[in-house]
C-alpha cells in the first residue's frame, strides 16, 4: 500500500466525511460502513474525490465495498486503477 496515497485518502475521509474528527482510532483496515462513516452520498463523494485527485474513472461495477470500504482497500484500488491508466505506445 502506497503510504502517500493512503495519507491523502485518510485526510479526505477525516475532513469531509468525519467533520475533521481524528482520535487516531480509525485504522487502515476499519470498515467505513461499520464505523458509520459513509452513506449513499458519502460513497459518491469518495468516488468524486478519487476521480478528481487521481485522474481516473470509476466504473459502476467497481462501486463495491471490496474496493472502497477501508483506507487500505481504497489505496489498493487507486494503485490498481493508476497502473491500468498507463498505456505504452
Amino acid at each position, binding site marked *: 500500500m502506497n503510504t502517500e496515497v493512503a495519507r491523502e485518502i485518510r485526510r479526505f475521509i477525516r475532513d469531509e466525511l468525519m*467533520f475533521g474528527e481524528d482520535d487516531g482510532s480509525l485504522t487502515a483496515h476499519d470498515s467505513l460502513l461499520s464505523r458509520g462513516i459513509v452513506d449513499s452520498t458519502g460513497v459518491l463523494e469518495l468516488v468524486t474525490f478519487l476521480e478528481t485527485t487521481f485522474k481516473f474513472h470509476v466504473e459502476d461495477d467497481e462501486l463495491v465495498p471490496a474496493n472502497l470500504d477501508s483506507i487500505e482497500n481504497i489505496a489498493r484500488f487507486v494503485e490498481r486503477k493508476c497502473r491500468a491508466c498507463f498505456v505504452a505506445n
Partner: protein
Amino acid sequence: MCGIAGIVNFDGLDDRAAAGRMIAAQRHRGPDALRTGSDGVAGLGHARLSIIDLAGGQQPLGSVDRRWWITFNGELFNYRELREELEALGRRFATSSDTEVIVNAYCEWGERCLDRFNGDWAFAIWDTVQRELFLARDRVGVRPLYYTWAEKKFLFASEIKGLLAHGGVEARVNLAALHDIFTLWAPTPPETVFEGIFEIPPAHWMRVSPRGVHVQRYWDIPFADESIVDRSRADDARWLEAMLQEATRLRLRADVPVGAYVSGGLDSAVVAALARRATTGELRTFSISFADPEFDESRWQADVVQSLGCRHETVRCEARDIARVFSQVVRHAERPILRTAPAPMYLLAERVRQAGLKVVLTGEGADEVCGGYDIFKETKVRSFWARQPESPLRARLLARLYPYQPRLQRQSDAYLQAFFQLGTDSSDPFFSHRPRWSLGERLLRVFSPDVRAAWANDNVIERLASRLPSSFRGLSPLHRAQYLETTHLLPGYILSSQGDRMAMAHGVEGRFPFLDVHLLEAAAAWPARWKLSGLNEKSLLKEVARQLAPASVVERPKQPYRAPDGAVFFAKDLDAETRDTIDHLLSPGQLESTGLFHAPAVERLVTKFRRGATTSVADQMALVGVLSTQSLVEQFCASTPRASCSASPFDCSSHPQLEPVREY
C-alpha cells in the same frame, strides 16, 4: 384552538400575576382574548382563538354550580351529540360551547369521559372542592401540554415558553432528550429538551392533588391480528369514504370559515374534495411552492385546485425565506429540528392568517394511518430481500423505492445491502427503523467531547423501548413500524414542529380528518394489503381517492414533503440581518459558549456548505440540527432567569382555606 396555562400551589396562595405572565407568553395561540381565574390555590389562564360560540365561550369557564373550572385548548368535534346525551342525564348548560360539554362530561363520567371524546384536546379542570387538577391530552398528541414544578408549585402550559414566563423555572438543556432528537428525530415523552420540563404524553391523563401526581394512559392503537380478519375490500372502501366524509364534516364545525391546505399530494386532495362536497359556499385553499423542481409540487396543486374550483393562494418559498424565518421557527418549535421543512409551514400559516382565516383542514395522518410512508415499503422489501440476499432483482427494489434520491440509484447491490442493513435480524422489534436511526450516529460527530462522553452510556433505543407498551413486541412488522411512526414521530415532530407550533405561531388551527379516532381504530384492524398492496402504498385510500381527486394526483409516485435544507443558510441573497444571525450562531465563540458542539467539526461542516460541495443527508441534518440547537439555547436559556426547578413531590402539610373562584 387556544393556549392554556395554570399554577397550583397546595401550600399557599397562588401567584396570580404569574398565571397572567404565563398566558401572555402564549398570546400568539389565542390573540382574541386573554383571561385568568383563580381561587387562591389554583390559577388558570386562557388565550382564546374564537372559533365556536364566539360570544359565550370565554375561559376559564366554570360548571353551572361553579365547582369545576376548565381551561381548554382544542376542539371537541362531537360536542353537540355529547351535549344531548348529558342534557338527557340532567346536566345543565349556560353556553353553547364545546368547552362546557367537556366540564359536564367530566363531572358525569370522571376520566372515562375521554373515551367518549372525538377531537383534539389539551385541557385542565380544577376541582375547587376536592382540590384536584385533572389534565388530559388527545389520543395522538395534536395539542401540546407541558408541565413542571417551580419549588412546590405545579405549573402547566400549552407551550414551554408559558412555563418559563412564570419566572421560577430554569431552561437547561436535557442532554438525554438532545440525544433522542438527534437519533430518533423527536424527544421521547415525557422528556423534553429542557431538564425538568415534561410533556403529558398523547393518550394520557394526569391528576395532581395534595396526595401527589398520577399519570395514566387511557387509549392505545388497537392493532388487530390480521390473520383472523375476514372482510370485504369493497365494504371497507365504502366505509372509508363515508367515514372520511363524516370526519371532514365534523371538522368543518366552526363559527368562522374553514380553509384547506393543498400540498399536491393525495391526502390533502382527498380532504379538500370532501370539504368541497360538505360546504355550499366558497372553499379557500392554500399551497407552498418552491423554485427548485426537486421540491416543488405546483403542477399537482394546480390540478386539485382546478378540479375543485377553490379560491386558491400560493406562498412562493425561496431559500432566503427559510433562512430568514428560521429563528422564529425554532422559537415556536421549542426543540431542535433536523430539517427545515417546518419553515415553509410557518410561512403558509402566516398567509392563511393574512387571508383572514383561523382554521384549516389538512391531510396529516393519512400516511401513518393508511400506510403511506416509504419506511413501510422499505421494511417489506428488506424482509423480502433478506430471505434471498443474493438476488439482484430484490436489491434493485430498494433503489426503486426512492426515485427522488438520485444518489441511491448508482449504488451497487453490495452498498445497498449495507445502507439498508440487510444483516439486521428481521425479528428485531425495531427492524423497520434501524437504518433511519443509524443516521444519527454520523450526526453525533459534531458534538463536543464532553457531550459525547456524557452519552457514552446513554442508550436512546433502550429508553424508547422502555416506554413502549408490552404489546408492541407482539405486533406484526408493519404494525410495529406504524406504531412507531404514529406514537413517536407524529406527535414528536410532524404534529408539533411542522404542525401545531407553526400554525399557532400565527393563531391558525389545523384540523386533521385522517386522525379521527374512528378511522384510527378501524384502520388498525385492516388487513395489511389494504395499506400496502405489493409495493402500492395506501392501497384502499387510493381506491376511494379515485372518485375524489384528479388522476394525476392519485397515480403520481409518492413524494414526501421536503424543503430545501442546509444550503439555504448560505444562499447568496440572504439579507444582512439573517446572514449575521447565522454567522453568529455558528461562530466558534458562540459554539464554545453553549458548549454542546465541537467547534472545529462544525467549522468543517460549514466550510463544506459554503464552498457548495456535495452534501449528504447526514451533513444536512447535522447543519440544521446545530443551527436550531444553537438558536434554541440562545433564545431560551441565555435570557431566562436562573432559579431552581425541582421535580419533588408535593408537601402535603398545609392547605389554604378555599376561596370562591374569581374572574378578573
